[in-house]
């Protein structure tokens, strides 16, 4: 069973439906016992980093996720959920993240040419930096996925498994041991997105 962590940010309907579509059992929950008992955990997120990080800490979910990550449970962060895996974010001030991955989150405007629009919104192609990442078991380099974001993860080259070119190579997916994340929305990326979720479901997290 997969636990989709509900901590009051974002719309989890599509994510839950995506797992149903690939025949995986998933529950949307904020209950610690259920999350701790799940085989795998999805950390979603839409909105502001500071607010989301605060909600995770105040609810005690931040501590639980850190504990589960250390025990080796596969955890996937999606969009803001991926950004929360890092040490800190500079979205409207400096804010501490979960620190499960080394690196920080900064405005994409810092690295892209001025004539490109922010947010980075739409379908963009994946460039693999580690093609053997288990999340890519069923997809190919160059496949398109759907992005909506104004901040990106940086100083995380060691754990970056894919990037997307938007005037600069933006971190698109990360993985270190049993912790992984997608900046894009697999639940909105058509067949390609469902294949990534399927690979996550089949992954043991011990790579």
């Amino acid at each position, binding site marked *: 069973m997969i636990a989709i962590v509900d901590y009051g940010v974002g*719309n989890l*309907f*599509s994510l839950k*439906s*995506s797992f*149903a*579509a690939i025949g995986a059992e998933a529950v949307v929950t904020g209950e610690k016992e259920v999350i701790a008992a799940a085989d795998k955990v999805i950390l979603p997120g*839409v*909105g502001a980093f500071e607010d989301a990080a605060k909600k995770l800490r105040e609810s005690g979910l931040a501590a639980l996720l850190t504990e589960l990550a250390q025990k080796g449970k596969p955890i996937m962060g999606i969009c803001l959920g991926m950004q929360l895996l890092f040490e800190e974010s500079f979205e409207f001030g400096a804010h501490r993240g979960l620190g499960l991955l080394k690196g920080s989150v900064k405005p994409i405007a810092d690295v892209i040419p001025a004539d490109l*629009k*922010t*947010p*980075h*919104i*739409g*379908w*963009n*192609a994946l460039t693999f930096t580690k093609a053997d990442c288990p999340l890519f078991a069923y997809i190919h380099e160059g496949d*398109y996925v*759907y*992005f*909506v974001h104004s901040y990106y993860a940086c100083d995380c080259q060691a754990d970056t498994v894919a990037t997307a*070119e*938007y005037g600069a190579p933006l971190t698109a997916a990360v993985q270190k041991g049993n912790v992984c994340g997608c900046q894009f929305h697999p*639940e*909105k*990326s*058509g*067949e390609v*997105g*469902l294949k990534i979720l399927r690979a996550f479901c089949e992954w043991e997290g011990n790579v």
Partner: protein
Amino acid sequence: MVTKRIIPCLDVKDGRVVKGVNFKGLSDVSSPVELAKYYSSCGADELVFYDITASAEGRKLFTDILTQTAAQVFIPLTVGGGINSTADFERVLACGADKVSVNSGAIKNPNLIYEAAKLYGSQCVVLSADIKRVGEQWQVFAKGGRENTGMEAIEWIKRCTDLGAGEIVVNSIDTDGVKDGFDLPLLSAVCDAVTIPVIASGGAGCIEDFITLFQTLPKVDAGLAASIFHFGEVAISDLKTTMQQAGIPARI
């Protein structure tokens, strides 16, 4: 590089797609769920569901079909029609919509854009503007293009962007239904005025119209159309292939 998006728009009344559609292989051509699945499989990058129902029962049917669609179609879904309050945002977002487009509701109460952007983020708030040339000016029309608000269009769009709109759908009343191409002068003026994504709507009659749009105005992010897709005059897969051959980034 981000691809140019192709977006079919479905007008839905009482839970059915209104304009006649003509597709082989679809068991129920006026089922929004079937049509959405079909478009998604053909390569549509996003879908717009426009609720043109007036009754409460019709609205209930609309949210039902939206829920069914969102459970089966995994590309971004935008919902428009009858959005007048943040409660309306809540209603459609809970059914699986990703973005909500506001038109007359924002004209009545521009602050709706600010409130919704604050609650759900700018990426969720799409301004849809029906625009017509009146004398030397482009003006904004309300109520499905029936009522002239007298507002100058570019000023209105800029104001909505400042309030927090994350994307803008530019519907040209002058070119809508004419099938002789998009309203390039209007779109050019909008592109010069804003930095948010611009979605062109109204006037597409053939594949070439999309090619001309994206080649003439590289700042336009997406093209939206309804009947030419529904009647099979333009197949999205053919359109995408032609775009790619013309050097326009397209997701295939």
